[in-house]
């Protein structure tokens, strides 16, 4: 009887005796993510499930990511198959209004410039010794687009998914802090004061809005077939929104489906943050490179804005170039606030929204181009 009691008590203490310093550190990191999400409001929809998933996976002996662990089931079914980010893309498409872009299409080029940070960071990552596909996964943080980063990293470097996702979502929420100093450093006060005025916008027909996602899907997917799942899902969501005939599906995509998948995806990302996997020097490098990637996106966007300013005889305020990233509509709001600091009568918001919508498409196209070039180079299978 006595020995049974002792064994029973030992069983209760097994968790404590198996708790290593790495797991304690990870529990602190996970709690910090929860604090940032709940108290500071930084991307709470993702950081809360990520933080909680990280707690669950670092409980000793719970074996949440073991062969029959409950997080393993969702990870294998939704992340390894790339289904979760794609389902989120349908929701994003259903929520996105591309009207500002359709009204002012030439601004879409700022959405391309805003992705250059991806490719410049790729070179930096390679210089720091990352393997080719690992470098691609790190660089994609520069897409400033959570689902794209998750899609690419789960495809090429699933072991880095936790660090890449945390970096992507953390920096996206820090855009209002990261962008303004770069915008100020690269523009003169005179440039920041340029008034773009009320844009001469032609109203957009409903037919145009419906045809747009179909044309983008066909055209972009033919040019970059490997990116068809990314482009196709965003545009399917947008077609459901604009067609107006499948409101139930649209509502499901932007509410129920996105909510359920966000919860499961967040938990799965957290589940990749096991101490042995996360507490490595590489993670710090990934976080550092992610910051550089988003800073470079902003810098190249602003520089491209300056080029457009020069080419149009000073009609474009270069600040709107910073909105060429995918963080929608946060980045456009940053541009508006920054512009008004130097000229109270300057309303850059609608112009910045056009660039920001361009950035949303730009990030998906950049990832699609990247995947297709990798296929062409024979780095990934066909």
């Amino acid at each position, binding site marked *: 009887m006595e020995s049974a009691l002792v064994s029973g008590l030992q069983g209760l203490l097994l968790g404590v005796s198996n708790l290593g310093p790495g797991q304690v550190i990870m529990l602190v990191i996970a709690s910090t993510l929860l604090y940032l999400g709940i108290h500071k409001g930084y991307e709470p929809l993702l950081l809360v499930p990520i933080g909680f998933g990280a707690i669950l996976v670092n409980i000793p002996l719970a074996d949440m990511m073991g062969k029959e662990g409950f997080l393993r089931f969702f990870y294998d079914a939704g992340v390894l198959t790339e289904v979760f980010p794609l389902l989120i893309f349908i929701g994003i498409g259903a929520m996105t209004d591309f009207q500002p872009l359709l009204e002012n299409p030439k601004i879409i*080029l700022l959405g391309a410039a805003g992705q250059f940070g991806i490719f410049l960071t790729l070179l930096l990552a390679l210089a720091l010794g990352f393997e080719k596909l690992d470098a691609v996964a790190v660089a994609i943080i520069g897409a400033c687009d959570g689902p794209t980063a998750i899609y690419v990293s789960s495809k090429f470097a699933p072991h880095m998914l936790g660090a890449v996702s945390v970096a992507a979502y953390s920096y996206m929420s820090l855009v209002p802090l990261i962008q303004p100093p770069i915008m100020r450093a690269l523009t003169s006060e005179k440039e920041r004061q340029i008034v773009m005025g009320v844009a001469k916008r032609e109203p957009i027909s409903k037919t145009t809005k419906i045809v747009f996602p179909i044309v983008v899907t066909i055209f972009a997917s033919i040019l970059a077939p490997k990116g068809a799942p990314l482009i196709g899902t965003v545009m399917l969501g947008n077609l459901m929104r604009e067609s107006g005939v499948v409101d139930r599906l649209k509502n499901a995509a932007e509410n129920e489906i996105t909510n359920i998948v966000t919860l499961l995806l967040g938990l799965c990302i957290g589940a990749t943050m096991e101490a042995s996997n996360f507490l490595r020097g590489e993670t710090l490098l990934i976080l550092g490179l992610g910051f550089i990637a988003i800073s470079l996106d902003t810098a190249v966007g602003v520089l491209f804005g300056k080029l457009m300013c020069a080419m149009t005889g000073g009609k474009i305020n270069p600040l709107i170039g910073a909105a060429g990233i995918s963080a929608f509509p946060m980045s456009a709001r940053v541009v508006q606030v920054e512009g008004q600091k130097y000229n109270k009568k300057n309303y850059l918001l609608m112009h910045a929204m056009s660039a920001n919508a361009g950035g949303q498409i730009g990030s998906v196209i950049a990832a699609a181009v990247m995947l297709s070039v*990798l296929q062409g180079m024979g780095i990934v299978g066909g």
Partner: protein
Amino acid sequence: MDTWTFGWTLALIGMGGTMLVLWILSLLILLIRKIFPYQTDKAAIKKG
């Protein structure tokens, strides 16, 4: 393929390709707007 050939090729084609695709997309948007101008909707409403 060595690391730097890989890196520079992906970076240059990636940046150029993204810019090219989005530029063509902007032209396509202008084309779609021309084919389906706003007036078409107004006319459709009138007809309806």
